[in-house]
């Protein structure tokens, strides 16, 4: 898309340098741990060494004897105010601090309040807790066996560890398609538990003013407005009311979904501040972050794909066991306990599909949040992209040709999938074709054949994913009843400088720049003249926040709509100033002019001034608008990724030699930022594909509880990403845009696994679960009789 505005105005399509950078490159960001208030106290948390144990006694005397330790807060203290349990976003219940027993290792047991963070840590060491271990359930499949110990003894009448059963699609039609299929493939696919590990951990500073009754909380949250409402609902009975709660989300050091939930630490810090009347800071360390904060994924899937010998796909069937830990604290829209997993027919024109998911309790931390993805889309994409690849290999068809054959065709859009989604727009073959050209697909296949003849292992993997982002239409999408709209409020000052505020919250996405670009596009006001603010619930309009790639699809649309409302009013003012009929006016970015006589014009700057100094009689003064945008549909970004790997037969090490990513997110606001998001997303796709996993031993001990063994990719492991794009605008979004921040994380893992399996298929290897570590490949090679 060629930009409609000049570089100086900086509307859509310009790679405007980021407005947020000048403070960050000088070390002048303002993250939560940078905030210091007078008389501030520090909170630190005692955590359980056991995965399941009765708490027999908590002895706080030694801790309280330490000078500077002011209090030790336990579950019994919170129980006096009925704050020891809190609801989760999925209407389950979660302990703030336990009264009877702990349910996972590293669970919060008590909290120490002290004058200094070192003293608080001393206090934590000095608290003595007497535990009686209980039998531990780690494996969700074993958790469903009849003799498994029932974990949620707090739930009256609960006799098993099953949380819910959810299914979607036409089962009889799917079963029939499978009965009639010429070819069927089945695979057990496990998508392990992983952790977002934003480089900034979570924390807050809670400050309660006893005189005014106002609570201000600076916290690492992606959804400040929703959090304010949750606090008001949960703590209304102790006197907190929504007009006296101010949530401020300062600069956030990465979110990726991990900063959506309400963690017990936040609630304890708030309680401590309300009780003491002093500001209380709680900042978790990395080990607490990895061990206790929400996990992502943990889906045990059995996937089946049916089709014909000629390579035509017909039906998909998936059964999943979802390990939720000890409570269902997933961050999903209320109606969808498995998120948007039923986007799992992906980019293909299937005739039938059926999906089942069963949620299970285990002795692990809760979660089920995204890891830079929109509500379980990665699980869905991984399943379908792995299965199409297996099917193609099974019938001996090239995976690229196979995908081309089964893609939804451009002329089929808007396309209604058998699982009920209405895909807005797409050109899947176009993206795959471009990716194949960029990487030199045919030559690579030749090279692979030559290498294979020499006994060398090289693989080429494709992933042609479709995402579903921008939740969502109020008819289907809410969180705790709050509809998933989002908002923009734009005020134009007399000198035509702008302040704009939003219900979302950037965590690195660059909203201060991109929202300004949308306003610049719509009103022709230079980006430099527009200030963007987010994250303060006292000033910003209500919105559901930033996650699931919803900021551009929802708040970005609200920005365009609010700008257009302003343009409507500006037109009336211009008509008055020009003494012309409104219908005779035409707009070009930055001014209205009289049709046919471009000299008779009023710039937006002149109009803004007139709105306060010379507005028409009968019209209200001022130039501002607000929009709460309820999207008519979701947006469906897509792309095709191709990955080339070389495998070391001696060590089993997988080396990603090249990776080409072609993305299509519709019209682009800032190409530089989009490319940056894709680079980052690809790296967070590489991470679970090859390195990251959180495991537990039989006693429920976490095995990857720090960066010692939870391996984030460094610059050395990360390939030099190659990106390109096609552009298929969304027909229903006011700017034709779709979300993009997570596409790469969603699409990349399957491309990498497909490449590895492609390298090993001729040896009889059909599937390897992620992360594909050297020992797994080494074992697969040895099982296949390959020696060095």
């Amino acid at each position, binding site marked *: 898309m060629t930009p409609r505005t000049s570089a100086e105005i900086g509307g859509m399509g310009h790679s405007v*340098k*980021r407005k*947020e*950078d*000048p*403070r*960050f*490159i*000088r*070390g*002048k*960001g303002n*993250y939560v*741990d*940078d905030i*210091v208030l007078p008389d501030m106290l520090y909170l630190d948390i005692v955590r359980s060494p056991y995965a399941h144990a009765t708490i027999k006694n908590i002895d706080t005397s030694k801790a309280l004897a330490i000078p500077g330790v002011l209090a030790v807060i336990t579950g019994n203290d919170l129980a006096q105010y009925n704050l020891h349990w809190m609801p989760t976003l999925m209407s389950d219940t979660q302990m703030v601090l336990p009264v009877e027993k702990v349910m996972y290792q590293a669970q919060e047991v008590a909290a120490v309040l002290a004058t200094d*963070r*070192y003293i608080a840590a001393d206090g934590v060491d000095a608290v003595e807790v007497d535990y009686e271990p209980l039998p531990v359930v780690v494996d969700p499949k074993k958790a469903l066996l009849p003799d498994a110990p029932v974990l949620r003894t707090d739930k009256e009448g609960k006799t098993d560890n099953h949380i819910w059963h959810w299914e979607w699609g036409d089962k009889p039609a799917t079963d029939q398609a499978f009965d009639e299929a010429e070819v069927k493939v089945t695979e057990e696919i496990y998508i392990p538990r992983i952790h*977002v*590990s*934003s*480089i*900034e*951990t979570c924390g807050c500073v809670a400050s309660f003013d006893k005189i005014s009754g106002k609570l201000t909380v600076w916290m690492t949250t992606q959804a400040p407005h929703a959090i304010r409402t949750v606090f008001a609902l949960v703590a209304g009975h102790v006197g907190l009311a929504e007009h006296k709660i101010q949530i401020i989300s300062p*600069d*956030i*050091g*990465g979110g*990726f979904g991990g900063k959506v939930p309400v963690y017990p630490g936040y609630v304890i810090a708030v309680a401590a501040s309300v009780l003491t009347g002093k500001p209380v800071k709680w900042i978790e*360390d*990395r*080990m607490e972050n990895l061990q206790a904060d929400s996990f992502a994924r943990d889906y045990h899937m059995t996937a089946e794909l049916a089709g014909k010998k000629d390579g035509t796909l017909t039906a998909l069937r998936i059964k999943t066991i979802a390990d939720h830990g000890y409570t269902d604290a997933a961050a999903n829209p209320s109606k969808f306990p498995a998120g948007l997993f039923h986007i799992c027919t992906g980019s293909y024109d299937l005739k039938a599909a059926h999906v089942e998911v069963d949620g299970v309790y285990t002795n692990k931390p809760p979660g089920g949040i995204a890891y830079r993805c929109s509500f379980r889309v990665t699980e869905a994409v991984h399943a379908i992209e792995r299965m199409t690849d297996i099917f193609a290999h099974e019938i001996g068809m090239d995976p690229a040709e196979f995908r081309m054959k089964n893609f939804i065709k451009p002329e089929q859009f808007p396309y209604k999938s058998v699982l009920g989604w209405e895909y807005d727009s797409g050109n899947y073959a176009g993206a795959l074709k471009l990716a194949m050209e960029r990487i030199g697909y045919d030559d690579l296949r030749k090279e692979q054949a030559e290498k294979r003849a020499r006994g060398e292992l090289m693989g080429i993997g494709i992933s042609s994913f479709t995402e579903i982002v921008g939740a969502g239409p109020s008819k289907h999408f809410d969180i705790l009843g709050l509809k998933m709209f989002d908002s923009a409020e734009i005020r134009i000052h007399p000198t035509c400088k702008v302040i704009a505020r939003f219900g979302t919250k950037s*965590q*690195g*996405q*660059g909203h201060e720049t991109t929202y300004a670009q949308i306003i610049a596009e719509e009103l022709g006001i230079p980006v430099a003249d527009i200030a963007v603010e987010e994250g303060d619930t006292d000033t910003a309009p209500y919105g559901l926040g930033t996650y699931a790639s919803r900021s551009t699809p929802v708040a970005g649309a609200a920005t365009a709509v609010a700008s257009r409302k302003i343009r409507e009013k500006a037109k009336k003012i211009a008509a008055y100033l020009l003494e012309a009929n409104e219908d005779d006016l035409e707009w070009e970015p930055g001014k209205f002019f009289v049709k046919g006589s471009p000299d008779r014009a009023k710039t937006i700057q002149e109009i803004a001034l007139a709105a306060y100094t010379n507005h028409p009689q009968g019209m209200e003064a001022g130039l501002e608008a607000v929009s709460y945008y309820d999207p008519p549909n979701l947006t469906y970004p897509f792309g095709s990724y191709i990955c080339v790997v070389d495998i070391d037969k001696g060590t089993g090490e997988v080396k990603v030699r090249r990776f080409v990513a072609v993305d299509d997110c519709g019209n682009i606001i800032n190409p*530089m*930022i989009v*490319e*940056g*998001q*894709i*680079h*980052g*997303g*690809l*790296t*967070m796709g590489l991470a679970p594909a090859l390195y990251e996993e959180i495991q537990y031993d039989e006693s429920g001990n976490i095995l990857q509880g*720090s*960066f*010692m063994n939870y391996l*984030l990719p*460094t*610059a*050395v492991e*990360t390939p*030099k*990403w190659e990106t390109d794009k096609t552009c298929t605008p969304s027909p229903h979004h006011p700017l034709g845009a779709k979300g993009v921040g997570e596409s790469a994380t969603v699409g990349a893992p399957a491309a990498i696994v497909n490449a590895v399996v492609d390298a090993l298929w001729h040896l009889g290897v059909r599937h390897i679960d992620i992360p594909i570590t050297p020992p797994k490949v080494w074992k697969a090679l040895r099982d296949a009789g390959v020696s060095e």
Partner: protein
Amino acid sequence: MAKIAISVKVNGVEHTAEVEPRLLLVHFIREALRLTGTHIGCDTSHCGACTVVLDGRAVKSCTVFAVQADGREILTVEGLEHEGKLHPLQEGFFQEHGLQCGYCTPGMLMTGFAFLNSNTAPTEDEIRHAISGNLCRCTGYVNIVKAYQYAAEKIREGGTQ
């Protein structure tokens, strides 16, 4: 706990303080001196968000005690800009979109400062190894490498380091 007197030069300014022997340098910088550009991202010396330059070498200030800095000279991200002029690395990060959330950025800049002192014509591979002790969750490193290359070129052309 008995306190120990230290004197440290930070960004050209002499500071004296009484500190507990266990106080980490990163907390001294952030909390005693209120220079909050230096960040904390882990507890095992892996993330590099806390990187500062100590007597010319990049160190992880979460893994140094404040008392070990006694009598020495420290440069933090706040000291990079000189007389209103950005350091070439700061310029590079801005121009090449080398940052997103900005949390890893100060550490990346300080690692780069020490690295480019000893190597003003690094290969991409050398840069990638140089920053392998600094984790970034947002950028995928491609543009951080470009930011380093941008700065190296500026420095070769005679920009300040």
